[in-house]
């Protein structure tokens, strides 16, 4: 679906992409993350063919220059949270009608699909309003419908959860989770909301200063970079002795005991067993590191300071 080989790109004297190689298969859902200015958007623009790499090779939708062919573009939708696709002064339904014409969709299939999408994204009630009368989140939902209607083979979503409230975020995330396989669509999901990416994408690509810092399973990056788990226990009785366990650190505040440990060195059960034997535990909580913490750690490391 997408192949990049040793892609380099310099924009106004800055090396924005440095030797990037990627392979993204059909129907994959890939999260793309990185700090501001890491090169995410440049990477996405290169993938669509809007930017030509200085050196290296790209191939998207079986084409080396996808943006040059209108036929190919009918299978590619790039939705962005800060660049509207809708017509500013027209009613939503007119914009959507136009989308049907532009992507040459079959009217009856498009109608059916539109019905479904209007249901899911709950936009039916603002069919007759222009985008300027809608809130940011409502507009974003319309944008999503506009982008999903042509059933593109490649869907690029760049910060599309902008302005969406919690319940919609959740709903849309659920919708996207198995969207790729159901609709035969490859999705690139770029976002700064790491919790979204963590929930949604099994594979993530982390871009840092123009290079791919990590490309692999989301669970793997967490295990690799932040192996530290934490147990929080409320206990009564004597303070247990941890001297013989390989823990990272432990702390006691009142009756709350916090234990940090590396899962590669010791298993959770071992600590639990130890605690149960030595003291009386009333309540316990095990905390897994999340993507956000992991990424912070990586940046801390990459920038030369550990937190």
């Amino acid at each position, binding site marked *: 679906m997408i192949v990049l080989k040793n892609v380099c790109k310099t924009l106004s004297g800055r090396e924005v992409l440095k030797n990037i190689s990627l392979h993204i298969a059909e129907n994959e859902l890939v999260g793309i993350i990185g700090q501001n200015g890491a090169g995410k958007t440049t990477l996405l623009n290169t993938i669509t063919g809007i930017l030509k790499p200085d050196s290296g090779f790209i191939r998207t939708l079986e084409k080396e220059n996808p943006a040059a062919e*209108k036929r190919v573009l009918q299978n590619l939708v790039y939705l962005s949270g800060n660049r509207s*696709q809708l017509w500013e002064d027209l009613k939503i339904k*007119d914009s959507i009608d136009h989308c049907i014409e532009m992507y040459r969709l079959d009217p009856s299939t498009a109608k059916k699909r539109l019905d479904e999408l209007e249901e899911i994204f709950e936009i039916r009630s603002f069919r007759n309003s222009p985008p300027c009368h809608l809130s940011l989140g409502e507009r974003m939902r319309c944008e999503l419908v506009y982008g999903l209607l042509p059933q593109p083979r490649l869907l690029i979503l760049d910060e599309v959860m902008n302005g969406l409230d919690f319940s919609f975020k959740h709903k849309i995330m659920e919708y996207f989770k198995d969207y790729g396989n159901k609709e035969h669509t490859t999705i690139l999901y770029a976002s700064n909301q790491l919790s979204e990416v963590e929930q949604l994408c099994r594979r993530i690509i982390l871009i840092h200063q123009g290079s791919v810092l990590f490309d692999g399973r989301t669970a793997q990056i967490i295990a690799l970079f932040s192996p530290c788990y934490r147990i929080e226990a409320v206990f009564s009785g004597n303070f247990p002795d941890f001297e013989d366990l390989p823990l990272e650190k432990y702390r006691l505040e009142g009756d709350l005991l916090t234990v940090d440990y590396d899962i590669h060195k010791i298993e959770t059960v071992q600590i639990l067993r130890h605690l149960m034997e030595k003291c009386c535990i009333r309540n316990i909580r095990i905390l897994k590191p999340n993507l956000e913490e992991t990424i912070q750690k990586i940046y801390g490391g990459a920038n030369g300071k550990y937190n």
Partner: protein
Amino acid sequence: MRAYVEFAVKKFQDKMAYRLDFFMGIVNTAITILVYLCIYKALYGDAGEVDGISYPMVATHFVITLGLSNAFHYNEMFLQDKIRDGTITNEFLKPVSFILRLLAENIGEGAFKIIFHFIPALLITLLYTKLCPPVSLLGLPVMFCSVALGYLILWLISFIIQTWSFWLFSVWGIITIKNVFVSILSGSLLPLWFMPEPLQKILSFTPFESIYFTPVRIYLGELSGRETVFALAVQAMWVALLCVIANMFWKKGTKKLIVQGG
């Protein structure tokens, strides 16, 4: 093709959304035309003809040129704004040609203004003064062809300058200067009949004469059958030539964008 028609239709609808703009457009067009008619009425005084041109001919000339030039006015900063805020990339990813889409939108806007600004303004003008009737019924469709070709010439000149925004930070100044040149050299300020002979000669080698003056002369029946065909051919030639130039700038500009990122 249908997608482009849809672009024109949508722009037409888009324009309908603003009621005040609709009424102001009529007032604007009517006033521009009436001011010129008053000036020329005063200039003519009791004279029946000046250089063989009668007052009704001049009046007709101004109604057509000013009416059309008001109708053919659109946002010429569109491309520049798109390039500046980066949304041009959005346009490149749509499965339609950007140039044709822009043309379709501008035609949609032009059609709207002709129907809702020009025609009402024309009726208002008719209350004030008499105009020359079309020379023949056949003349009208030929004139419409000529107007369409004139529009394309005007549009292409504007588009070529718009493409310069790939290289320049602002093309506003150049567009303003261009508009002054077009309005003087195409005869919408002073009819080309009254221009000095040498200037008329020079202008006949430029595209400006073909924009409004050719349709006006066809309408007034100033051209014989063969001359009309020749005038249309000249218009078509300019359209073709400007197309080539516009395409060249567009190709160069978009190439710069995909290589240097705008």
